[in-house]
Structure formats: structure tokens, C-alpha cells
């Protein structure tokens, strides 16, 4: 029983996934209940996480393969929130798709449980299992649509994802051979004790691991799937992929590199790899996004650039002493801010494209006159993605750039700020299209209730994190400190 209590938040989500299938089989006339079963499971999961915060009694589970610390619990909240927003945003679309409603929600919940396990894994084996538990449902979801674009996106995503996990596994196998353990604490000890012997093997192993996770984080040069999959997959699924899979990958990479391969070990080498990848990703994503005419492809390229921004925090890993946690807490806060912001943008896109039946940016002309609420929220999210106050994105960028300056990486910050200027051009370009241009037709419309709720929550989150970032910043700082406690 104690074991189940320790994985309670994940357990609640998995139970809801099973329950959704049971409801579908037992009460076929009550299919409308299924999304609410999913939401109830997520609510239970959040309640369970809150109980762990209240108990403040953090510990490891299952022989040290999983750990329940502030870091993991912070991400439990983020992932449960993401899943709830995606479930709400999916209701309309899934009903229209008209098949396998229970399976859709069960897959979303299963991969959410996978994200949660990823955030709490402290062992290479459990990291791998959790990664696949979250990935395989996403492959199916990306191919969920009936049209040929969706199945093509699903197959592409799966083939590239499977190659990436094979590369990751090879890196893990070499890491196991080098350190003779799969447990992150043991890896840290072995790497520290190993000194310079077998150093080339270690660097090869870590490069392969970064490549494998780089695919999930969608950073250059492992980004080629992003625009295709975002464009082809159903929009609610694209929203889910863009925040969930990226957030979980950053959660696990931060833990892996700060706990297993952290300071005093080899951090200077990784820090340079991360810095270069971050700079290239920001530049590539922003430059490619300028020329896009399809809003989903644009958000795909913008998410590559945002991954580069988050990675600036990882590059700050080499900061010594007390400030060591700055980079990690920057990553954590950025992931939370990015989750709200990008979900808001995607949900607005879902609502607009359901109405106008197009993803072309040119068709968003004059949206301000047709649906002020939708245009307003989308503009707010775009402002936050650019990083302009008073939004969540501003504090997130400030925080990671600050950590990079402390790590003596002023050049990276300069590249980051220049990139923010480039991104302002296309983010605010969409806003200008919506507010200034003349609409093709005048008919006004409102989004459906479920979409309005999730849109309202996302917008409130973006503003709340922007106006009063203090509580979440300190929670992120506490979470990052539990990573540093290992030393």
C-alpha cells in the first residue's frame, strides 16, 4: 500500500484511463461522461499531489528507481494541468471524429502518467519505460484523424521517435557499461570516481543520450519532425505534444544532468554542448517561423525556438556553489510558463479553425471584430511567447537569461535577446493581422463552453504568472534545490 501511495498521482491517472474504457463498454449511451471521468481522475491526481505537499515527507520508492520529491511534485501539477486543458479542448473535436472516444481519453491519460513517471524517475531503466509509456500513446494520437495527413504524421512521428529511442538506449547502455549501475546517484559517484579514464566513452554515451532526448525536446538538429507532425496531427493532439512531450523531456534531462552528471563531474563539457544547441535552435526556429503561412507550422517552428530558450537554463549547469540551482529552477519555471502560454495559443487556434475551417494566417484577418475574446487571448499568448511584460513569458526568459549570465555566458544571452526581437516580428505580425486587417466576413461567433473554460484558465495562468510570479518562482526554486540536495 505504501508503494501505491508513493505513486498515487500517477496511479489516479491510470485508474481514470482504465475507467474511461470501462464506462465506454458498460454504458455505451453515456459516452458524454467519458471526458468527465478523465477530468475526475486528473482532479484526484492533483489532490493526491497536494496531500504530498502537505505531508512534506519526500522519499524514494521501488528500490530507488522512483523518487517523490518537490521537483517531481511540481511537474505532477504541471502535467495534470496540461492534460486537463487538453481533455477540455478535445471534447468537441473527438465528438465530431465520432469513434473511439474512450480510447482517445485513455491514451491521453496513459501518456500523462508516463510524463509523471518521467519527472520522478531516478534510474535509467525507469526513465526508458516512462519515456515509452508517454511516447507510444502519442504516436497513436498523432495518427488519430481520419485523413491521410494525420496517419502520415503518426507514422513519421513513430519511425523517427523509435530511431531516437534506439539512439538514447545505446547511450544508456554505454553509460551503464561505464558506471556499472543504472541508478542516477550511483552514476554520479562512478563518474566522479572515474576521473579521466574512459572519458571518451563517457562523452560518446552522453552525446547519444542528448541526441535521444533532443528529439523529444525538439531542438536542432533533431527537429525535422516538428512542423510536419504539428500540421498533420489533430490540433488538440498537437497542443498536447508541444507542451507535454517537451516539458517531460526537459524534466527528465534536467534531473539526469543535474543529479547524475552534475557539477564537479563533467558539467563544463555538457554546458558547452547545451549552449551551442540552444543558440542554434533559437536561431533556426525563429528564422524558419518568419516565412510560414500556416499557423500550426508556425507554432511548430516557434516551439523549436522556445526549446532553445529553455535549454539556455540547462547550459547554466556549470554554475558553481549556491547559484547552482538557478539554471534548473529557470528550466522548471519556463516549462510551467510555456505550458500555459502555448496551450492558450493552441486552444485559441482550435476554436478559430473549427469556425473558419482554415489554418492559414491570412484567414485570421480581422479576427478581433469577429471574436474579441479569442483574438484577445491569442494575442496575449503571442505576447507572452515573445517575452514582453506583464506576461509569464517575460519572467521565464528573464530568469533563464539571468542564470546564463551568472554562468559567464553573456554571448548566449545576446543571441537569445536578438532572437526575441526576431520572434517579435512574426508573433506580433499575427496580432497585427487579427487587429488591423479587414475581416473577410463580418459574422461574429463565440467558442463552445468547454473551449472557453480551458482558454480562460490558460489566459489567467499567463497573466497570473506575469503579474505575481513570486509563489511559482519560489516553488520552482525549492524544487530545483531538491535536485541539488544529492550533493
Amino acid at each position: 500500500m505504501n508503494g501505491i501511495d508513493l505513486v498515487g498521482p500517477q496511479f489516479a491517472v491510470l485508474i481514470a484511463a482504465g475507467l474511461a474504457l470501462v464506462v465506454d463498454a458498460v454504458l455505451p449511451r453515456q459516452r458524454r461522461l467519458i471526458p468527465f471521468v478523465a477530468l475526475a481522475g486528473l482532479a484526484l491526481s492533483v489532490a493526491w499531489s497536494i496531500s504530498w505537499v502537505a505531508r512534506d515527507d519526500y522519499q524514494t520508492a521501488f528500490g530507488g528507481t522512483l523518487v517523490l520529491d518537490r521537483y517531481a511534485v511540481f511537474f505532477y501539477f504541471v502535467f495534470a494541468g496540461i492534460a486537463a486543458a487538453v481533455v477540455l479542448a478535445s471534447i468537441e473535436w473527438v465528438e465530431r471524429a465520432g469513434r473511439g472516444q474512450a480510447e482517445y481519453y485513455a491514451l491521453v491519460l496513459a501518456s500523462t502518467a508516463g510524463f509523471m513517471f518521467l519527472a520522478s524517475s531516478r534510474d535509467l531503466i525507469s526513465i526508458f519505460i516512462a519515456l515509452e509509456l508517454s511516447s507510444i500513446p502519442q504516436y497513436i494520437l498523432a495518427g488519430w484523424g481520419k485523413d491521410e495527413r494525420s496517419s502520415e504524421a503518426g507514422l513519421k512521428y513513430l519511425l523517427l521517435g523509435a530511431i531516437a529511442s534506439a539512439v538514447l538506449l545505446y547511450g544508456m547502455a554505454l553509460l551503464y557499461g561505464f558506471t556499472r549501475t543504472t541508478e542516477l546517484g550511483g552514476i554520479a559517484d562512478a563518474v566522479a570516481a572515474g576521473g579521466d579514464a574512459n572519458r571518451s566513452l563517457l562523452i560518446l554515451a552522453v552525446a547519444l543520450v542528448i541526441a535521444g532526448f533532443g528529439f523529444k525536446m525538439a531542438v536542432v538538429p533533431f527537429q525535422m519532425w516538428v512542423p510536419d507532425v504539428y500540421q498533420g496531427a489533430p490540433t488538440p493532439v498537437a497542443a498536447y505534444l508541444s507542451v507535454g512531450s517537451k516539458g517531460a523531456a526537459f524534466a527528465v534531462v534536467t534531473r539526469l544532468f543535474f543529479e547524475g552528471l552534475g557539477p564537479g563531474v563533467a558539467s563544463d563539457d555538457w554546458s558547452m554542448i547545451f549552449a551551442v544547441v540552444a543558440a542554434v535552435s533559437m536561431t533556426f526556429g525563429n528564422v524558419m517561423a518568419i516565412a510560414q503561412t500556416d499557423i500550426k507550422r508556425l507554432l511548430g517552428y516557434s516551439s523549436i525556438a522556445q526549446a532553445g530558450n529553455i535549454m539556455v537554463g540547462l547550459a547554466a549547469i556549470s554554475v558553481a556553489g549556491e547559484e547552482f540551482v538557478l539554471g534548473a529552477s529557470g528550466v522548471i519555471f519556463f516549462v510551467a510558463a510555456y505550458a500555459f502560454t502555448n496551450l492558450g495559443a493552441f486552444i485559441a487556434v482550435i476554436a478559430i479553425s473549427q469556425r473558419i475551417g482554415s489554418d492559414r494566417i491570412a484567414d485570421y484577418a480581422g479576427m478581433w471584430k469577429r471574436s474579441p475574446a479569442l483574438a484577445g487571448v491569442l494575442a496575449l499568448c503571442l505576447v507572452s511567447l515573445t517575452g514582453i511584460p506583464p506576461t509569464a513569458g517575460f519572467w521565464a526568459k528573464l530568469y533563464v537569461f539571468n542564470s546564463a549570465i551568472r554562468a559567464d555566458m553573456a554571448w548566449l544571452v545576446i543571441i537569445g535577446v536578438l532572437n526575441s526581437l526576431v520572434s517579435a516580428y512574426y508573433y506580433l505580425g499575427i496580432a497585427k493581422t487579427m487587429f488591423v486587417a479587414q475581416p473577410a466576413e463580418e459574422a461574429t461567433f463565440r467558442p463552445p463552453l468547454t473551449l472557453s473554460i480551458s482558454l480562460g484558465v490558460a489566459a489567467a495562468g499567463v497573466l497570473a504568472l506575469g503579474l505575481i510570479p513570486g509563489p511559482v518562482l519560489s516553488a520552482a526554486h525549492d524544487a530545483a534545490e531538491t535536485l541539488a540536495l544529492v550533493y
Partner: protein
Amino acid sequence: MTPGLEHFLTVGAILFCLGLTIALSKRNAIGVLMGIEIMLNAVNLTLLSFARFGVGHGPVTGQAFVVFIITVAAAEAAVALALAVSVYRNRDTIDVDKMNLLRS
């Protein structure tokens, strides 16, 4: 001469590179899948040889890892074949070079 750790590792590395080459160059989706399976089996061989020669007879972590990889690979292959069938029904081909609907 009895084969040692480095021989097994060399075979594993060669297999991995072969698998990666196949996965990246094959045009048929099933061929790509076969390349991925070869890569995963190269990983298994590497893990097992480390477990046998490097760590010795202790905890069976390496072997346990391999069992998990085999299981997950089976699940992944099942989903991949289902998606391949779905693409084939829509397009009458599973040639990955012809999957070019997704362009701006």
C-alpha cells in the same frame, strides 16, 4: 583465444551502425522498422556483454534492462504496423519518400 568484452562491444557497435544506416536509408516503412529492430538488438547485445563481463555476476540490472527493451520494442512494433496499415489504406503506399503531403 576466447572472445572478451571488446569483441562483443565491437559486434554491438557494428550492428548498431548497420541498423541506423538501414533505418535512415530505407524507403519502405517496414524496412525502416527492421533497421530499428536491429539497432535495439545491438543495444541488447551491448547491455548483456557489459552485464556479463563488466559488472560480473552481481545484480542482474543489465539483464533486466534487456527484458524491458524487448517488451517495449514489441509494443512499438505493433503500433508501427497498425499505423503503416492506416497509411496504406489512405495512400496505397508505405514509401516514406512519398509521404510529402505535409508541406507549407
